[in-house]
């Protein structure tokens, strides 16, 4: 009952504007009138152009399929399903007129209905006449429409025929488009037009899939190279700001890492020469070296010394290996935080006291990977409640404005008066000022880190 009611309502709607739009593209041009044929040819050409543009603009596979289905339903047919394979995945989107879009992603190994599989393998255009009713009809539908809800909707629509169009690009068939119309309407002499349509769609989707596959590879690498999430340590508030020079690569040579047990954390903030993915790879190696070293000894000076030796040894392989960094050991002690800090050629860490006093943490040390046997001295500090430790990379002070660089003075001006604020507010204040100073200009990688210790009163 429900189905027939739906079908009637749909039939009613289809008699109006949708029907007219579909007719513009698919009506049989039986009339020998050359002007009518010409008009249809130009309508079709315009539609194909618009469709190609739409499909290629959307470089996300699932969205592209969904959009394709909705455009086909709007302008041409009453049933549309698109299936593509990419890597180990099979993506399907399908809908009937006025119905929801059914979207699925399954693994290819999980199986595909046999007829659909054949169509994928053969890559040939096929017209399927559906049995009128009963089990044979349901079987025929299920053979091409893997989503049972979609198959039921197509059944209810009373669709009599399906056109199965292969999607082929670069000599391989990677997908299938299945379309159908309401009862009483077929595809007539539109065969060439449909082949043309499938070819255009295939080229657009193929490009989208290629982009998506390489983006996927890149995103896996990006996840392994990007700064890891900060640990949650009771009483310790950590905040970071990170902005890379090459925004579209989303990777840079500035690095931040915090690891270790809650009561004995190692912080590393640094900057390798260069930008983009190459710099990120090198940064990852340095982070790994520091992590390894910190398992042996947690003194920051010793850690930087060992990391330096490793990098110097490898310097021949990695000619652009130069890097700077601050390494600190953070240990809560009652309501205070004890900090041991060493610096390898990096801008000095800042200590913003709760009362607004700003101190520079002075320790000496050459940049990493320059000098064999370099040693790093340590500074010892104690942070009281609401005191903040700030570490930043030179992307902050060297941010180029309309007349000059951001500089140490502006950094101090920003921090003045912000003593006692939570780290997230400190970081944001600096980030806003740097961003305003930069405007739309290109910039280096920028990283800022702040820590504050204020344990829960027990």
């Amino acid at each position, binding site marked *: 009952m429900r189905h027939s009611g739906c079908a009637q309502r749909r039939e009613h709607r289809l008699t109006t504007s949708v029907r007219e739009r579909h007719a513009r593209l698919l009506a049989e041009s039986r009339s020998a009138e050359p002007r009518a044929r010409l008009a249809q040819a130009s309508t079709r050409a315009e539609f194909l152009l618009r469709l190609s543009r739409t499909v290629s603009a959307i470089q996300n596979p699932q969205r592209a399929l969904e959009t394709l289905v*909705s455009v086909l339903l709007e302008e041409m047919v009453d049933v549309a399903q698109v299936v593509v394979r990419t890597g180990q995945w099979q993506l399907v989107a399908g809908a009937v007129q006025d119905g929801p879009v059914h979207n699925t992603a399954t693994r290819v190994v999980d199986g595909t209905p046999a007829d659909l599989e054949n169509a994928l393998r053969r890559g040939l255009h096929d017209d399927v006449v559906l049995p009128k009713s009963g089990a044979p009809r349901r079987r025929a539908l299920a053979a091409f429409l893997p989503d049972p809800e979609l198959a039921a909707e197509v059944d209810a629509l009373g669709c009599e025929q399906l056109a199965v169009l292969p999607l082929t690009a670069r000599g391989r068939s990677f997908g299938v488009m299945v379309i159908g119309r309401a009862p009483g309407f077929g595809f007539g002499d539109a065969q060439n037009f449909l082949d043309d349509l499938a070819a255009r769609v295939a080229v657009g989707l193929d490009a989208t899939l290629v982009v998506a596959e390489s983006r996927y590879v890149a995103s896996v690498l990006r996840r392994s190279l990007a700064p890891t999430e900060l640990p949650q340590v009771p009483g310790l508030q950590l905040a970071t700001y990170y902005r890379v020079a090459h925004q579209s690569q989303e990777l840079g040579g500035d690095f931040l890492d915090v690891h270790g047990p809650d009561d004995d954390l190692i912080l590393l903030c640094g900057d390798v020469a260069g930008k983009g993915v190459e710099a990120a790879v090198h940064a990852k190696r340095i982070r790994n070296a520091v992590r390894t070293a910190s398992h042996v000894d947690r003194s920051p000076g010793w850690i930087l010394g060992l990391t330096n030796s490793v990098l110097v040894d490898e310097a021949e392989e990695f000619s652009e290996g130069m890097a700077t960094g601050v390494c600190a050991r953070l240990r809560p002690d009652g309501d205070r935080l004890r900090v041991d800090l060493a610096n390898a050629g990096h801008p000095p860490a800042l200590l913003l006291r709760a009362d607004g006093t700003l101190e520079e943490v002075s320790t000496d040390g050459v940049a990493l990977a320059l000098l064999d046997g370099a040693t790093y001295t340590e500074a010892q500090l104690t942070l009281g409640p609401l005191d903040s430790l700030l570490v930043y990379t030179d992307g902050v002070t060297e941010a180029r404005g309309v007349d000059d660089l951001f500089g140490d003075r502006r950094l101090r*001006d*920003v921090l003045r008066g912000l003593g006692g*604020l939570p780290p997230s*507010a400190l970081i944001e204040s600096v980030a806003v000022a740097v961003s305003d100073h930069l405007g739309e200009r290109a910039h280096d990688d920028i990283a800022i880190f702040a820590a504050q210790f204020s344990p829960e009163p027990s």
Partner: protein
Amino acid sequence: MTVSTATVAGAELDAYWTAVAAGDARAAYAVAAATHDRGVPLPEVLAGLVIAAQRRVGELWAANDWTVAREHAATAVGEAVVRRLGAAVPTPTTGPLLTVACVEREWHALPAMVVALTLRARGCQVTYLGASTSRDHLVSAILDIGPRAVLLSASLTSSLPRVRRQVEAVRGTGTPVVLGGRALDPDGRRAQRLGATAYARSPEVVLDVLAALPVHVPPAGPLRHPGAFEARSIEAESDTISRDVMLATGAALGLEHADGDHTSDDWRVVLATFVPHVIDCVAGALLTEDPTVYAETRAWLGGVLAGRGATPQALAVVEEALAQRLHDHPEAVRLIAGA
């Protein structure tokens, strides 16, 4: 009383406000969590406590009752509360994919965080990209996620030119874009002029707005009115315009010998910070063909300067310098003169 109609009580807002004013994130979270536990739905807690308090924070700063530092501290409290409330909300694995971001150089993250959390609480799969999201980052996220729609938040009218550029970027990917935030007018006219697919007045109406969105949208057509051309030219050299206007203003008000050791709450520092915003607002008003964009900013900045004891003619001097500098932009000159 049913659970779903429970609203924030006056005493709860008072207690929350006391915690925010003290910069006490733990106390603020305790109030918000208790309100939620009492049966007030999360979206209502967010709107009735977090957003309500944040509006008051902005007003107190504008009136110079609060320092920048205090405003920052209170804002950090609001963000911490939203994050902690969010940690208890499960991440849906079905439901529409949505991407929420703040426009580039827009640092008021709280409204977008609230929208993101409200939608997550209502079963949407939301990716929140954070404050000041660059166009490149946004487009990358769209390609990777394939969201049903992108929601862009803008709180400052000076962000409108950047809103337009991000609308172009998003629509270039065929994705519907919904605008929200105080930079837009309640009737959604500015959003429409900027090419948005839709406008959402508040986090609560976003779901209804989403239901009516098309699956895909065509690229944004170019804006061709005379003001649009001028806006583009002003944006392209906004740095130098702003420097020239500041120099002229400084000379006229005798500020050039000021030694720069002013705190961030001094009116001279505030003026220098907001001149670039005024210029962006001129561009925004021209882009949206909405002179109230400029008039609102002017009124707001006038109040902020007066609250900080600025020379009464300071704003007039800035406007004169700006009109002078933009003399070859007739639409801009008319806009400034008409305000």
